[in-house]
């Protein structure tokens, strides 16, 4: 078994229901058959990025990292990380419980694996967020302490193709769904850059309405700051760097359900509510 495999703490994003076809076997040359490998037929993909959304009906090689012992013919839910992708594919399952009614319930008829993954990401980001609000972007500006550097890179920091081009979005808060927030406005710092490093981060525009999952002290932010300056004022800014950190208004029920499921009472903003009623 490979060393330093992703641990249980790293939530697998590829989840499928499968049937064990052969134990101690591998259909992938790069994966040596062992007591922990099996060939599994994918019966249904529950959650997956787009590239793996269509593998139902195919056999995959699975390294079994979970505690459940499986037998040929057993049907299980596989929570897997990617491993080897060739003409066939191999994955490493951190968990593989035998299918139970609870699992059947999570497979909605016609459920799209990519959409399911997006919902799972939203849940994860909700749980990780310091504050979750709904509101409207009223302005987008350069961070207050920005100034032009001699080379025009902004913030007086090095010119790098990976520069995030930080912007501050000022958000009029309609309601707080998680955490505490003083005042009726929140400022979220986001990268305007289209560089490979930043392109998936939400790009906010004035007038944009929805749910904002705001993070303080994201693990990566401190180191990103060293590359390009995150918070010139020294105060940790809210960020929203993951695509799931913004949810449009049509996801209201889903976000409120997340709040309720986690015991967070939504607190409205009277001023904002009056503003909305007035429109």
């Amino acid at each position: 078994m490979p060393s330093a495999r992703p641990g249980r703490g790293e939530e697998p994003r590829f989840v499928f229901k499968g049937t064990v076809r052969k134990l101690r076997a591998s259909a992938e040359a790069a994966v040596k058959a062992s007591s922990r490998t099996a060939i599994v037929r994918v019966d249904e993909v529950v959650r997956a990025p787009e590239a793996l959304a269509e593998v139902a009906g195919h056999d995959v090689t699975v390294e079994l990292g979970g505690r459940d012992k499986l037998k040929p013919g057993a049907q299980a839910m596989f929570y897997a990380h990617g491993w080897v992708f060739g003409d066939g594919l191999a994955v490493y399952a951190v968990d593989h419980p035998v299918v139970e009614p609870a699992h059947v319930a999570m497979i909605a008829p016609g459920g799209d694996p990519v959409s399911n993954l997006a919902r799972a990401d939203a849940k994860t980001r909700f749980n990780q967020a310091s504050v979750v609000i709904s509101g409207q972007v009223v302005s987008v500006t350069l961070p207050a302490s920005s100034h032009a550097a001699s080379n025009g890179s902004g913030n007086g920091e090095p010119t790098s193709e990976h520069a995030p081009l930080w912007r501050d979005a000022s958000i009029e808060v309609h309601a707080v769904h998680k955490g505490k927030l003083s005042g009726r406005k929140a400022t979220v710092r986001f990268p305007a850059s289209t560089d490979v490093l930043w392109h998936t981060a939400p790009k906010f525009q004035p007038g944009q309405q929805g749910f904002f999952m705001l993070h303080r002290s994201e693990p990566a932010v401190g180191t990103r700051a060293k590359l390009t300056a995150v918070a010139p004022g020294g105060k940790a800014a809210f960020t929203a760097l993951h695509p799931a950190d913004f949810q449009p208004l049509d996801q209201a029920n889903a976000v409120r359900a997340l709040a309720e499921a986690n015991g967070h009472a939504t607190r409205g903003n009277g001023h904002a509510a009056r503003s909305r009623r007035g429109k």
Partner: protein
Amino acid sequence: MATISLRRRSTPSRRSRSAAPRRTTGPKPSGPSLAFVINMTPKSLSGETSQDSEPHLTVNAAKPKQIVGTAFTPDPAGGPRAPIYISDNGGLAWKLNSILPSVAGSIGTADITTGFSGKSSRLYAGILNAGNIHLQFLRTLNPFTTTPMTILADRANADQPFTLATKKGAKEHVYIGDNDFNAPGGKTSTLDESLNAGATAPTFTSVRDEKRTTLGQDGPQSRPTAHKDGTVYTAFYRWRSSSGSFPANTLVITSADVVVVRDDNFGGGSPPFNALVDLGDAVVGKRVVTGVSFPFMIHGTAATGQQRLGGSISIAVDPRHSAVVYLVYADRPAGSVQTLHVRVSKDRGLTWSGDCLSVPNSTNAAIAVTKTGVIGFLYQQIKGTGASQRWETHLRRSTDGVNWSDLVLSNTPATTPAKTFDPYLGDYDHLVADGKDFCGVFCANNTPDLSHFPNGVIYRRNANFVTRQLLKLDGTTVVAPSIDPFFFRVRA
């Protein structure tokens, strides 16, 4: 039940199949040549639509059938390890092996290059980890196993690692060019080297190649090349002045020098890389050209075929004579978005020729020299405007640096697909000499259209070359075109 099998459901055509490498009857350097070109995306990822740009490649000198490629390819399962491309049959088929440290759901790496040292199957890598944006140096004893690569060194605030690995006897040497913003005095062009990289816990030393003042930093390109006799060259841009605004995409490096430094003892000189002194100012580092100008773009535009431009550098030493070294650099003369210039030095970098070749409207220069002295020059050139704009990938070859053949490897639309991020094709591609062959990698629009690949192409992912459509694993559902990496092998 269906097993994802090796067989293609749709084969390109007889023409493309006949383009397989012919290793024993290769063409003469200056004449027309068959090329083997393959889309590196494996069959199991037929449904992917990622922008897999910025490719790099290394061939294992000890086991030439072992090749590793890289690109901006996320883990297809969205997991916390990013993949490399591996081939154990000389590039005829490719797999992805997710063994790089990263963070789940991310692009994986924001820069990556790799190098086989030539000792068994040991592979080294320099990456920008997309999770924390740290520069990390990695190692694996064998990239064809599923063991994650080991992090040998880690630091923040550096950019564009460019990896070269070699060996001397039992010791492995690793040279990683980068732009290190931690360097004092704005002298940021750096070569991180370990002269015993195979040690359990190897030490990397940051050699500051820049000895002159700069505008506050150098350019991101720092490119090493090494000869077996111990000669190591590195080339980089010294940025001297600029105008315009980077955030506004108007930044122009109005004056830059192209500088070459050299070490004659495998990088172990005392001090290292001080062997080449410019007689003009008596400072270490030969200024091959001075005062060149070019844009440094934060994002590509329609005029540049969606590709951001920001200079380009490649350097290669002749394996037969360490005194002979070829250099490619970019500038922007009037009438060209960016022009590549090929020059040569035959006296260990002390003096340099004028242009051996220059190519307008081009980027992603990569130069290599075979053991027989054939020069290979890979680049990508923008042609046309508007809807008819194309990206052409060329391999030029020459035995004398004067007469060059021209092999067009791809000719693809520059307007589709629309870019999802910068860089569209990559801030670099790569070319290496493998015996008497050139092996290389470039990125392009992946529409399965034989008119886009004049010398043929192989796809492992499902594709219909009659309808010119990519297909999902089911063999019927159409997949939108995207950017894929393409490996090629051409007899020198």
